[in-house]
Each structure stands twice: as C-alpha cells, then as structure tokens.
C-alpha cells in the first residue's frame, strides 16, 4: 500500500528527471519555433524581423528540398529492407543448433559497437577507395575497372555502410523474438509434414510480426537522423544530402537560421508521425 507520505516522496524523486527533460524539450523547441518565423541571419545582419510563414514556404520550394526528401526515403527504405530481410534470415540461422554459437553471435553483433565515424571512414578508405581500397583490388583481380563508390554509386554505398551498422540490431532483436517461439509448435508442424516454407510463412513470420514492427519503427527514427556517416564520407555531395543534412547545412554552414529552423520543425513533425506508432506499441506493452 502506498501511503500519502510515500506518494509525495515519490513525486519528489521523480521531479529532477521530469524537470530536466521538460526543459530539454521545451526550451530548444520554443526557440526553434521562434526562429522559424524570423528572418535570422547571424552573419549577415542578424535579426531582420518577422517572416511569417515565408521560411516554411521557402524551405519546401527550394530546389534542394525534394531531392533531399527522395534521398532520405531511399536511404531509410533501403537500409530497412536490407536489415529486416537479412536480419530475419540471420536470426533463423543463429537459432539453429551449431558449434560455437556464442562466438558467431559476437561476430555478428560487433559492428553495432563501432562508432559511426570509424565505420564510415574505414569503409570509405579501406574498402571503397577507388585506387587502394580492397574492392578496387578485387575488381582488378577479376579484370574489371574499379568503381569510385562514393561518387558514382554514392547512395548504394551509404546504404551499404549504414546497413552494416544496423544489421546487428535487427538480427539481435529478431533472434530474441524467435527464441521465445514455442518450439513444440514447430515440431508438430514438421511432423505433420508442413514444408519449410509453409512453416516459415504460417508460424515464424506471424510470431515475428511485432518484433519486425518494432525494429522498423526504432530504426526509422534513428535512420532519419543519420549524420556522421554522410558528414565524413561525402559531406552531402553526390546526391547524398538527406533532410537532416540539408537542415544542418542551412543552420551551421550557411547560417540561415530562420530557414533551417523551419526545416527543423518539418523534421520534428516527420519524426513524431513515426514516433506515435512506436509509442502505441510500447504503451500497450506497459499494460501487459
């Protein structure tokens, strides 16, 4: 039984975390909203008065906007497709009996712990460098012309780097979900002569449904804001400028704070649309 005394104590204990997060959310958010309605150019005259919805209109009508949206969708969609499909296959494989399962699992998970700047630079130089990279060596070995990955196939290269980083996450979560599957059900289906494909589509896939949804939602939120991978590989060139990167350039590189802030508000709205779905699932789980 919670007493009145312990209730007020509980409120007191919660206060620091709540107040800090409230400040962390409200202060910058209010400032971004404020700047988004301003003509604010810190290096070129500073505050030039109210702009109404001009920044919002200009952000979406600039020639860089739609390509950035497209790039963002291609990267997020590509990485999701690769990590979820390969993640399911890999999780099913790792669930099978084998020797050295623990070691294999560590090998597969390892990329997740590599800091983004390291993985991006290692891939960019040691694998994708058109002169000295391993891929160039491999291509020459087969008599082919080495590819300038990050300029000629920039989007696929970034998708590949980011997929390598996130495949462990998808695999690990899907593996956890597969392991909670009742193995007797699968055995019964196998004894009844259900072929492997039918067992997969009728038993395994439905069981994984929720885990797949969670992987997609969480990854989408993180993938929408990937930054370091683009920052150190292409710097937004060669058609790799995502929405996040475009806003970063508007705000810090060209110091057009009003315009960048309007872009920021769009990004916040976009992330919230995804977040609502994720929160529903997490919230349901809290009741259980």
């Amino acid at each position: 039984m919670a007493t009145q005394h312990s209730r007020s104590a509980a409120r007191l204990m919660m206060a620091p975390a709540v107040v800090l997060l409230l400040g962390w959310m409200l202060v910058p958010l209010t400032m971004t909203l404020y700047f988004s309605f301003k003509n604010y150019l810190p290096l070129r005259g500073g505050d030039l008065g109210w702009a109404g919805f001009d920044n919002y209109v200009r952000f979406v009508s600039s020639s860089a906007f739609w390509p950035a949206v497209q790039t963002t969708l291609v990267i997020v969609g590509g990485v999701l497709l690769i990590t979820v499909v390969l993640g399911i296959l890999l999780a099913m494989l790792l669930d099978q009996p084998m020797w050295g399962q623990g070691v294999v699992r560590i090998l597969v998970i390892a990329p997740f712990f590599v800091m983004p700047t390291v993985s991006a630079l290692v891939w960019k130089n040691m694998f994708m460098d058109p002169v000295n990279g391993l891929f160039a060596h491999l291509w020459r070995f087969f008599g082919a012309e080495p590819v300038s990955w990050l300029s000629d196939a920039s989007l696929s290269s970034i998708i590949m780097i980011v997929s390598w980083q996130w495949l462990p996450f998808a695999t690990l979560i899907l593996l956890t979900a597969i392991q909670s599957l009742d193995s007797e059900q699968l055995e019964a289906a196998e004894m009844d002569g259900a072929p492997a494909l039918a067992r997969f589509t009728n038993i395994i896939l439905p069981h994984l449904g929720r885990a797949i949804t969670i992987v997609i939602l969480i990854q989408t939120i993180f993938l929408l804001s990937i930054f370091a991978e683009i920052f150190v590989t292409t710097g937004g060139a060669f058609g790799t400028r995502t929405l996040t990167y475009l806003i970063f350039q508007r705000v810090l590189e060209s110091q057009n704070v009003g315009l960048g802030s309007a872009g920021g508000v769009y990004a916040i709205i976009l992330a919230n649309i995804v977040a609502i779905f994720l929160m529903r699932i997490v919230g349901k789980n809290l009741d259980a």
Partner: protein
Amino acid sequence: MARAVTTQRKAINTTLAWAIGLLIFFPILWTILTSFKTEAQAIANPPIFIGFDWTLENYSIVQERSNYMRFLWNSVIIAGGSTILGIIIAVPAAWSMAFVPSKRTKDILLWMLSTKMLPAVGVLYPIYLLFIQLGLLDSRIGLVIVMMLINLPIIVWMLYTYFREIPGEILEAARMDGASLREELLYVLTPMAIPGIASTILLNFILAWNEAFWTLNLTAVDAAPLTAFIASYSSPEGLFFAKLSAASTMAIAPILILGWFSQKQLVRGLTFGAVK
C-alpha cells in the same frame, strides 16, 4: 521430445553461420590487422592478410602526432560523466515509478520516451546558441550535460523495467519490519537492483561513447572526443590507411569488449522493454 538433430545438419549450420559471421566481422578484423602494417603493406595489391612485418609504429605515431590520449580522456569523461549523472537522476525517478505508481506513471514514461524521438537537427541551432551564450561550446561539461539529457529517457526506461521485476512484497515486508525509506533503499532494493543498474550503466556508456551528432557539432579542439578525432581523418594527406586503422582500433577496442558483456541488455534497452 527434443528435436533430433543430425550431426550433418549441425555441421552445415555451423559452417554457414561461421562464414557469414566472419564476413560481417571482416571490416573490423581488417582494420585491426592493418593497424599493425606499414603504410606500404596496408595498400599492397594483392592484399596481405597475416604474412606481413608486424609493427607497433602506427600506434606511437598516432599518439605522438595528435595527442591521442587527450581525445581518449575526453571520451571517457563525456561518456562516463553523463552516465553517472544520468543514473543519479534516474534511479529515484525509476524507483518511484516502479514501486509507487500513480495513474499518470504510464503517461510520464511515454512522454519521456517521446523526448528521445526529437530529431537532434531540429534543435541544433538553439542548443548551439545556448552553448555560445553560456560559454559551454567546446567544453566537456557542456557535452556531459547534453549527453546525459539525450540518454536520460533510456536510462529511466531501462531501470524502470528492471525495478518492476523486483517483487513489491519484499519491500512491503521490509516496511512491516520497520525499515525506513532510506534503509529500504539501501539494504533491500539496492542489492537486488545492482545487476539492472550495472547493465544500464554499460549500455549508456556505449551509446554516449559512440554518439556522433552533438560531439561533432559542439566540439572543436578542447573537448573533442574520439568520434571527432576520427572524423578529422576524413581529409587526409598522403598515405594513412595504417594510421587510420591504428586510431580506429584504439577508439573501438574498449567498446567492443564492453559490448560483448552487454548483448542481452542491448535488446531490452533499445526496444524500451518492448522485446525481452
């Protein structure tokens, strides 16, 4: 009846899984191997796998030229400081939500989670401006605070899911026996909560160590951690594969080892308890 697995099938699984595992791990292995080569061997064609003259000179060059230890120290301070600060703030909050839940507990938890979804780039300029005005730009303390705030929702969530697994009856029994709130926290809850707290610390240290948006945008020289140090290799001069590898190996080695211990907590921490 346990499923009978033939040795042959097990051998096929093993071969396939090891092949894929090594393929995925290969970039890391290659980086570690390259860090012990000379620059000429690092770009040799055909590539040399093991049969090169192992050398440690890249490590000493990286340390001498760039004062690597300072970046390492910044990473330790930022990741460690933000995690400790976060735990101090989150433990009481998670405790009260797990053991004295009210009607609003669920809403508060979900709201905390929603702050984690805020895209960093949306608040980049305000934070940048506040940092300039408060003199926090390129300071360790500034990054400790930001890193603590972005990870606080995850810390509270993880602790909450761990605390909720501690049976409330034990706390009630302690209360019946006349334990004060302080004693209850200190002697009953803490020993049972230590594994959960340790996992939370571990995962958040890893997340903070690898964070590469705020660390790149809010540091220049003094407070730059390893993420920013490695990024400085993106515009290199001359041959540098071996040196890049040495710097990278040093930056990821501690986390690979910690990560090995945190595999299980990773799922719980990153799915906010939705997958266990």
